């Protein structure tokens, strides 16, 4: 037996929230096979410290080191921003970190996969039965009471660690809040179990019964900490550390698509203004539009799809609900924004909307090439690039806390040029049909240029990290 190795080290960590310095020049180590409780008054900075260790708050000064799979340590965050997600982390935020459209079983499975543990259905059913939530396994979180939701949230952090052969880091923010006595007993037992498996458990709590199971207690008062207790002895030094699922990005994509499938609010948000635009185009009159030339017809042809691409994606609201975006950010780090900008975009609508508009406009005496209808899918698909770039801009400002009070649309004017180039490309297609030639006077050249401009805007919006 030897003194357990430190898995997380904070060195000189200073964190500000608003104009207030919450934590000042903190040095802290969290060891393997150790339960650490963070205590303090309301507003003292318990959650801030826990979330900072998880990489959710920027450091004003200092750095946080985390473990690598081979037992070394790397910087996971410092005052210059977030570097990499903390390996082996599973976390339950105080506000659950889940979107309420998720189902209980879906949430638990997905959280385990993201944290690097694949769990079979039998084990999952057994755990749900122990925690008395098996009867609700197929229900959406929105239908659960606060206490049940809390159980699901805490379980989504516990299961990956309990069911993994390798150890990791579990962070729980006020886990016993809203739980009945039986659940609290199960929680304490699970925490002791996690310690015996070599996991580090960090808990921010007011609950004295949880403090009693801790090896060390960190008390925060007036921006400084005092620590009681000694690091444990451990023989886990050579054992494997649990790694994150490398496919966290694909899990995130699956999560986004499944939520939209359950509640297609994004599709409706985008569809309604686009359909209204098409109906208005119909009201103006197909003959009137056709008489104004092919450029004008192309403009009206792509306009509904362009409108659908500009709409603020519902994914942003989903990521805000219960701070599920922060939960994903803790696991994915900086790759989250690029992934979200792709998942949250309008992928399905540009094509049908463009053809719908084409049908409406074709009712008039549109003097278009007869083969044009076989090729207008190409500019319609390029609208998807515009949508991805627009989503990137929406996400750029989604880090602001009062999201309803910001106007991302102010930066959308830059999308005009890729759109106008697609209008040009479409008018060439309507005029002479499609051509495989490349050049700025060809439909293909214009579509490619439009896509390149969209990609540049997207890259600018997602590659500047907000921390």
């Amino acid at each position, binding site marked *: 037996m030897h003194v357990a190795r430190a898995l997380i080290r904070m060195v000189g960590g200073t964190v*500000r*929230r*608003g*104009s*207030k310095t919450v934590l000042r020049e903190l040095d802290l180590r969290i060891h393997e096979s150790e339960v650490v409780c963070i205590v303090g008054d309301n507003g003292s900075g318990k959650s801030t410290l826990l979330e900072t260790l998880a990489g959710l*708050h*920027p450091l*004003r000064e200092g750095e946080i080191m985390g473990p690598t799979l081979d037992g070394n340590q790397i910087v996971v965050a410092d*005052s210059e921003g977030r570097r990499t997600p903390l390996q082996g982390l599973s976390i339950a935020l105080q506000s659950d970190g889940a979107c309420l459209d998720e189902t209980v079983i879906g949430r638990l499975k997905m959280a385990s996969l993201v944290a690097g543990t694949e769990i079979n259905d039998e084990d999952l059913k057994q755990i749900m039965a122990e925690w008395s939530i098996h009867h609700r396994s197929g229900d959406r979180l929105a239908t659960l009471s606060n206490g049940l939701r809390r159980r699901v949230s805490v379980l989504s952090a516990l299961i990956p660690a309990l069911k993994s052969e390798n150890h990791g880091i579990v962070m729980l923010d006020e886990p016993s809040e809203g739980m009945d006595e039986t659940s609290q007993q199960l929680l304490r037992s699970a925490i002791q179990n996690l310690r015996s498996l070599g996991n580090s458990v960090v808990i921010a709590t007011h609950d004295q019964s949880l403090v009693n199971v801790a090896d060390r207690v960190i008390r925060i008062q007036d921006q400084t900490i005092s620590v009681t207790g000694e690091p444990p002895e451990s023989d886990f030094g050579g054992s494997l550390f649990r790694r994150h699922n490398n496919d966290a990005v694909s899990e995130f994509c699956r999560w986004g698509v499944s939520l939209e499938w359950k509640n297609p609010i994004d599709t409706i948000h985008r569809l309604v203004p686009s359909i209204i635009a098409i109906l208005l185009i119909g009201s103006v009159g197909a003959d009137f539009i056709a008489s104004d030339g092919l450029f004008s017809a192309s403009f009206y042809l792509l306009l509904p799809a362009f409108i659908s691409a500009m709409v603020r994606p519902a994914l942003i609201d989903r990521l805000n609900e219960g701070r599920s975006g922060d939960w994903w950010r803790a696991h994915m780090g900086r790759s989250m924004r690029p992934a979200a900008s792709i998942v949250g975009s309008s992928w399905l609508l540009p094509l049908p909307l463009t053809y719908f508009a084409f049908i409406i406009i074709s009712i008039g005496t549109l003097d278009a090439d007869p083969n044009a209808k076989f090729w207008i899918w190409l500019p319609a698909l390029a609208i998807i690039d515009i949508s991805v770039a627009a989503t990137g*801009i929406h996400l*750029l*400002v989604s*880090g*602001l*806390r*009062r999201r309803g*009070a*910001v*106007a*991302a649309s*102010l*930066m959308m*004017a*830059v999308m*005009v*040029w*890729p759109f*106008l*180039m697609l209008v*040009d490309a479409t008018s060439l297609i309507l005029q002479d049909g499609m051509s495989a030639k490349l050049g*700025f*006077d060809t439909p293909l050249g214009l579509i490619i*240029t439009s896509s390149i*401009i969209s990609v*540049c*805007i997207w890259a*600018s*919006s997602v590659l*500047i*990290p*907000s*921390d």
Partner: protein
Amino acid sequence: MHDDLLGPSMRHPRSMAIASIALGSIGVIISAVLGVFLAPDVNPSQWRAPEAYRIIFLHVPFAWTSFLAFTVLFFGSLGWYLRRSESSWRLVQTGSDLGLLFGFGVITSGPIWGMAEWGVPWDWADLRLNTFALLTAVALFIVMARRSQFDDDTTRDTIASVGLFGFMLVPITAVATTLYQKRHPGIVIVESENSGLDPVIRTILLSGFISMTFLFIGFAMLSNDLYAKEADLEKELKKLDLAEEVS
């Protein structure tokens, strides 16, 4: 103590700022009046609306000072992003306020002239007009976000990111408008190679430039001073909050 370290002329930055604003304002008004009544007519054969050109005595100095403001905003955003210093944040505050003010001057005076001269208020193939419009929109976003959001590091980080994003849009806009112009040539203004600027026009324009620069410097000093004092006041209020909580 801090004031003692400054020279006598720097002890009253607000007085200097107000003097600069007063001087600049008077100069801008005089330049505008001279532009309307004293500046000679231009060759009617080269312009569709020869009288409308007089708006340049406001439009061009506005463009110059908004360029200065956007530069301040860029360096402020970069400074906050890299060092998170309070002085950089004050540059973001000042740059966005002045960028909005002077940028608004550019994008309102431009279309007035465009409507008269080109027959359309906006030309998507004109690089300068579009770049100024985008940066003014970014400045407006930042001003609105600063006013509506909690003032914490996260907000400032996001706003600084938006500031930098706005400047990354400039080369993208330049390429996009240039390419777009290839297919839709902008409205070309015929200028005689040997005429140059009339000396009176040049003098009034120069006077407008200098006056607007004074106005900009005055506003920048005043804004910087006010935001510094606002930050000091906030600190004192926080102390009072704590004292109230203890008692």
